[in-house]
């Protein structure tokens, strides 16, 4: 009991040391949340029965307005956006495709008629949703093209010289309206129309890599901060000091890491209620925390004045090659990347297979912790 009380006291002392640098804690909490909100989180609409597209109307003329009117009459949801907003929405998965209506859309000049009505189409990936969006849009563009053709034929008639352009187009408009009212058209009747399936269910997928990055950085900084020489000297001077110090350090880093992880998740959950977490997320993140603690204890074997650089470099290499800093292709996580600590974590979070199971990883981590303890306790010099 006395031993446990003693360890608890040491843990509290070490937690106090960590709390002396609140800016570190705040940065490691705020930055991942901020990055997720600004750019990291993507949208996955798990209800595929809703198609949403965006258009950028650079023309902003009668022809483009007519095109938009045709689109609004059908089933697909179309949103007008600026070019930048549309590209962002596309990459975040908020829309299935983006059409750019160019500035000279529908403006009759010496260009080929098809070029006058051509548009640009941006997609994130080829799938049925983007394909359908493209078909929907183009079917409407064809209508305007044919109408323009009709106008040109009428305006180029020899008899058209007796009328002004406005008169001919006005006559055409009247006759088209009359035909519509007279019932001209192709009528369809639908049976078993699937319609839209209730509400759209949207899930937000946060960026795991940034969470892994900041949890690792926080753990390393914590390990380095706990290497305070004077405090260690005092702790080591008591009976059973090395063992108690070691256990207390691990517990302190575990507690602080868990608090950081849970707080970060809590804040993200508040700001992104539709947030999705993969199965086993917390287990993997706890294993990451233990990995970083084990790494910190290995680093503690290096003399204090030389510790920062190698620790930072090794962490940087693991983070970069593990794909926590820059996202790497899936084949890397499933291949060589799984043998790098952060690559293993990222692979697991992405649901990719790996040769090392979580249990095996835990055993490896415990072995490293035990080895580090043995080496630390048997060292002569105090760092």
């Amino acid at each position, binding site marked *: 009991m006395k031993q446990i009380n003693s360890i608890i006291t040491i843990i509290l002392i070490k937690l106090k040391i960590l709390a002396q640098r609140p800016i570190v804690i705040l940065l490691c909490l705020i930055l991942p949340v901020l*990055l997720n909100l*600004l750019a990291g989180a993507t949208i996955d609409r798990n209800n595929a029965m809703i198609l949403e597209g965006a258009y950028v109307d650079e023309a902003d003329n009668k022809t483009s307005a007519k095109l938009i009117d045709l689109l609004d*009459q059908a089933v697909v949801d179309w949103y007008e956006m600026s070019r930048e907003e549309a590209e962002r929405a596309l990459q975040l998965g908020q829309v299935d495709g983006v059409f750019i209506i160019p500035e000279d859309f529908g403006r009759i000049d010496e260009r080929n008629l098809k070029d006058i*009505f*051509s548009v640009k189409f941006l997609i994130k990936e080829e799938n049925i949703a983007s394909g359908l969006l*493209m078909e929907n849009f183009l079917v409407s563009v064809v209508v305007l093209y044919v109408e323009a053709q009709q106008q040109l*034929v009428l305006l180029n008639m020899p008899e058209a010289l007796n009328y002004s352009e406005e008169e001919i187009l006005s006559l055409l408009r009247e006759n088209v309206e009359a035909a519509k009212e007279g019932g001209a058209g*192709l009528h369809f009747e639908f049976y078993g129309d*699937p319609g839209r399936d209730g509400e759209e269910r949207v899930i937000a997928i946060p960026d795991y890599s940034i969470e892994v990055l900041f949890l690792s950085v926080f753990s390393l900084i914590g390990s380095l901060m706990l290497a305070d020489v004077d405090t260690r000297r005092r702790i080591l001077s008591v009976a059973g000091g090395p063992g108690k110090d070691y256990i207390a350090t691990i517990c302190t880093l575990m507690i602080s890491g868990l608090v950081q992880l849970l707080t970060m998740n809590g804040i993200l959950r508040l700001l992104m209620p539709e947030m999705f977490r993969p199965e086993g997320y917390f287990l993997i993140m706890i294993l990451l925390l233990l990995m970083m603690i084990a790494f910190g204890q290995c680093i503690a074997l290096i003399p204090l004045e030389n510790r920062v650089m190698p620790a930072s470099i090794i962490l940087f290499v693991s983070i970069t090659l593990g794909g926590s800093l820059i996202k790497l292709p899936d084949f890397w996580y499933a291949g060589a990347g799984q043998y790098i600590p952060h690559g293993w974590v990222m692979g697991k979070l992405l649901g990719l297979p790996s040769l090392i199971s979580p249990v095996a990883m835990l055993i490896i981590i415990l072995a490293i912790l035990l080895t580090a303890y043995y080496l630390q306790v048997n060292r002569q010099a105090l760092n």
Partner: protein
Amino acid sequence: MNKGRRQRVIRSIRSFLSYFRYDLRRNIKSMIAVLLAIVILLFIAKSSVNPEAREEKTDNIPLNQRSFSLVNEDDSEMGAMFVTGLKRLTFLDKVYLDDMETAIRRLDNQETVLMARIPEGLYESANSGKSDVSVEVWFSNWLKMDSYYISTLIKQFVVSAKHSISSVFGFQKTYAQLSGNENKAWEETTKITIDYLVTVLNRMSFLQKNESPPFAMEAYILPAILLLLSSLPGIIVLMSTASIRATAYEDRLLLHCGTVIPLLSRLLIGCIWWILLVVPVLFVIRGMQPGLAIGKISVLLFGSFLSLSLFMTALGRLDTPMATLFQLGSAILFALLVLAGAIYPIHLFPAWLRRVASITPLYYTMQMLYRFIAQAWMKVDIAMEGVLLTFWPIIPSALLAWKYGRRKV
């Protein structure tokens, strides 16, 4: 040049070479280790990459293809036109020309996603301009998602067809009124209608070639990695500046070499680090993608290295402990990489953040790198304006390095 000046120049060169050799000796072991590590990593990475997988991905039709039944009771060209038009849709597979009973059976057995019935007299009715006969469409009750997708297209087509048919009849009437020749009017109307149908079948020709680079993850990762590798020597320059700041050794350097030589030597060591980190990667990439403009990419990367290193020499002279300087330098580098779009593509940023990012030093470098790589990778023509903008940070960094990066007395 007089003798005294020549001697001073020779002395300066000797001091520089002497200091540079010393600096190089301190770094040589790390350089060799890093070069070996990079070569091993590149070998592993290259053997993991499967270029054919990317080709397969773009060649595959990624959709479940569905079939539908057509019951053509009208015995006219309309059914044939339906079949031809719908066959051009990549997500529709087979078209069965069935009778009603067979079509219903196929729908119930989930062989088809929909069945359409063209009733007798539809063509004549449509031709007369008073369509009182409807096409009937039944959707599958089981394949709801696929039915929904097809229904969106059919409904859009219905809207478009309604406009087109009424405009065709309107055109015919207008032509007849202007020319006074009913037969000629119908002739022209038929031409327009045929052209409409042909245009519907060839609607893809309305898609323009996109000018801005289509976003592709593979083409984005490479510039990010290159930019990161190119920026790392800046941290090395920072630490080598900070390690001798305010030491007796720096005092001796000042006496023997002046203020410029140590700075130049550190930058040259940084250059060697840059070569070790970046050049092997560029060689491997060139082997994998022969059309890549490696020379131009190298120049862009060297420019970013130079501007960052010059800035870091100024940062390294701050009166702060080395560990703090290292963390500060790393934090600044991280922030620059985020704003350049190396961590997240710039497309993901909100508009205001993109504007902020566009004034950061590494932004244009990253954009140009992406364009060069995307152009070679995806074989598209991409506008290259903005290349000169990648070099703008060199001037303010050089000024900072001149003012704050040198030890003054």
